[in-house]
């Protein structure tokens, strides 16, 4: 089960986010899914919510590529440490497209039941993204 859950976590990243196959959510994500993202004030609800979530980032970064740096599974949980790269060609968080390439890292903890993702918690470097886009001053070099 541990390896099966890790495989689903990898497929969600690969198919939904990297390839933009939003319909993959119907195969891997529970209709009752709840997602928690530190960069979002409200939870992501349902497989339709995660499709919208993925579409938001793929619109902002059409060449989005998330690579898995490390993955650990225990019980019904899978922890994935990831790195995302992409070129900012669509509006995100009100920031108009800059054409800049960005790299951010994050960690997602998934919870699975019966082969479906039912809940997750993601913490990622949203401030770093905004600094790379120039929307927030780089506090080190500013």
């Amino acid at each position, binding site marked *: 089960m541990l390896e099966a859950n890790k495989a689903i976590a990898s497929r969600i990243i690969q198919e939904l986010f990297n390839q933009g196959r939003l319909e993959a959510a119907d195969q891997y994500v529970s209709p009752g899914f709840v997602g928690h993202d530190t960069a979002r004030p409200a939870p992501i609800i349902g497989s339709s919510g995660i499709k919208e979530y993925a579409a938001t980032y793929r619109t902002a970064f059409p060449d989005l590529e998330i690579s898995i740096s490390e993955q650990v599974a225990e019980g019904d949980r899978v922890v994935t440490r990831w790195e995302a790269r992409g070129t900012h060609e669509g509006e995100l968080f009100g920031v108009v497209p*800059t*054409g*800049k390439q960005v790299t951010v890292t994050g960690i997602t903890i998934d919870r699975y039941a019966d082969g479906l993702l039912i809940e997750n918690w993601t913490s990622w470097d949203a*401030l*770093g*993204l905004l600094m790379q886009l120039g929307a927030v001053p780089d*506090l080190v070099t500013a």
Partner: protein
Amino acid sequence: MFGSMPQPTHLPCPSCGASVARDSVGEHLCDEEQRSRYERFQARVEVDRFDAELTTWLDTPAGRFEVFYAAHRRRAA
């Protein structure tokens, strides 16, 4: 743990927009194709505005005459 300012691990190169790891900024060399793509992207609003203004102008009497005269000169050449 909270003693340092948050900072991204990567920053975009100001010349070509490529994502460069902060600890290897000095070693980065711009790829010419990437730089050209980045500069075109930066200029896209200006280019779009120019295209729109040109399209509008080409539909004015002066613009139409210039199109006619250019075609005339091309035929005469």
